[in-house]
């Protein structure tokens, strides 16, 4: 049973990353390979603010989130908007280039060692049926779910969120109806970066942050988004949790060396049976 608890913990991070993928996918139709780097930067930022500048968490976290919005918007303006005669492949490759640059910057600025920050809440082991969960893992799960819920509210209720959905339904029509598509794209990247930074902030006390982290995090998040069905909001969340639980499950029943292979095997199997992911529709579910 322990695998369920550990699976949900890592799965909720995958879910946040998958949501970042989905938001950008829905507004631009591309996969942002730098999404994992946003998580890395989140960890690095909170480390800098807490451990180097010694700010209290309640000031440091909002600052990091603000920085995230700025980084995401800047990312879109520098890398995405400037591409001449853009097409899907080119835009994806530019995000790969951007991820290399971010990783390089991460290394130059924060060095090669793994960094860690003190836990935000007191460490406590919660004894659950057939397993344990730490208070910090619980925090990760709660923060991820709260983030997902408030984001879905944002898309459903606020007028800006509605503009996002219009943009996804039909870019040209949205443009005609007075939605500033270019601004929405920039915002999409800002929100994706925000999600990444949230994931980075909550995981750093548990599993540290290293400048190379982005690759694997991004990959897992992408896998989660695909598993759930690209573009599907709750699909991404479900995909993330499922992926986390699969990994934990395979690590606990198989020779653990093969766990990644089996996790990917499951994803392949899902794709063969449901080519649009578990919850994806022909034109994937709306935000």
């Amino acid at each position: 049973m322990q695998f369920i608890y550990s699976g949900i913990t890592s799965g909720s991070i995958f879910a946040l990353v998958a949501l970042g993928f989905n938001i950008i996918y829905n507004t631009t139709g591309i996969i942002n390979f730098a999404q994992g780097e946003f998580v890395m930067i989140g960890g690095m930022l909170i480390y800098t603010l807490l451990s180097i500048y010694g700010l209290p968490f309640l000031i440091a976290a909002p600052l990091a989130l603000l920085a995230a919005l700025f980084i995401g918007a800047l990312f879109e303006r520098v890398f995405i908007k400037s591409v001449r005669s853009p097409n899907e492949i080119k835009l994806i490759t530019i995000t790969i280039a951007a991820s290399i640059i971010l990783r390089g910057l991460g290394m130059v600025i924060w060095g090669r060692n793994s960094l860690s920050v003190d836990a935000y809440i007191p460490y406590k082991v919660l004894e659950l049926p057939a397993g344990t969960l730490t208070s910090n893992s619980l925090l990760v799960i709660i923060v991820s779910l709260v983030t997902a819920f408030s984001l879905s509210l944002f898309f459903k209720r606020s007028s800006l969120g509605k503009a996002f959905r219009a943009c996804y339904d039909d870019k040209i029509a949205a443009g005609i109806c007075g939605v500033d598509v270019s601004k929405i794209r920039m915002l999409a990247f800002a929100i994706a970066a925000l999600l990444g930074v949230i994931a980075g902030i909550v995981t750093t006390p548990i599993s540290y942050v290293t400048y190379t982290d982005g690759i694997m995090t991004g990959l897992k998040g992408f896998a989660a988004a695909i598993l759930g069905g690209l573009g599907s909001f709750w699909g991404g969340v479900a995909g993330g949790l499922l992926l986390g639980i699969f990994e934990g499950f395979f690590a606990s029943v198989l020779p653990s060396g093969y766990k990644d292979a089996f996790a990917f095997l499951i994803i392949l199997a899902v794709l063969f049976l449901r080519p649009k992911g578990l919850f994806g529709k022909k034109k994937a579910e709306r935000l």
Partner: protein
Amino acid sequence: MRKINYPFLILVLIILISTKFLIKNEYYLSIVIFGMFNAINASCFNILLGYTGIISLGQAAFYGIGAYFAVIVAASFGINPMLAIVLASLFSALVAFIIGYPTLKLHGHYLAMATLGFGMIIYVLMNEMAFITGGPSGFLDISKFSFFGVSIYGEHSFYIFVAIVFFLFTVLFEMFDKSYLSYKLKFIKESEFASKSFGINIFKTKLLVFSITAGITAFNGGIYAYYSGFISPVSFNFNYSIELLTMAIVGGLGTVPGGIIGAAVLTALPEFMASIEDYEMILYGCFLAVTIIFLPGGLTGLIKRILNKNASD
């Protein structure tokens, strides 16, 4: 049926031959050899993405399958390395066929994920099946390479061998590019809908292309294993697949010189930057970004434009 671009092939040949005579330093030769390995792999990737529209992020796996299969078969059964490489190539094509059968029904990002997942699975197997692959520590027991009795060892003789293989593949790619097959693939890429209605069996064509490029990549991988004398899984991980993608795009998708130029530039670039160390990654990323942002057709597109401009002046 277009005319074969003989000036291009002759230029390649001249460069290959003059490299042999001008460059005596093994270091530069080894860079050129790696460049050629990358060029063949990037060209295969280019045929998949640039011609057929198949995004395969698992090419490193086929490269690895070729390398491992060749040396393992040669070591266990004591067969000739060249034969082992051919077998590896066939095996890889078979794997691609089996994997491609369900995978190639997917499209776009889903296909990317499926091939990426396949690459990860193969990577895990290379690591975990230590009893035949040597695991993460690598495979050392690689015999000397000989080709019909001619022993090939060291940068100089390997250069000749790899250059011949590379040139033959380049000719093959060029002949492919100018044959109707490349139109057919581009038709599939442009519109699967339209090409289907013109009687083209898309799935069969894609499967064939996927298998053949996997075979070529594996053939290449086999030679790489013998050249390097040591292989370990890190050389065949996801990053290498991404490198191939960037090579093909920087070079120019959908053209034969694209894969070659992209591989040449991106293989040579880090060598120039070797002493910059910390900033290498950033500069490499910036170079990529600038190429993608400002050169729509990649480097090949740029060269073409310059040539055309000169011609019209």
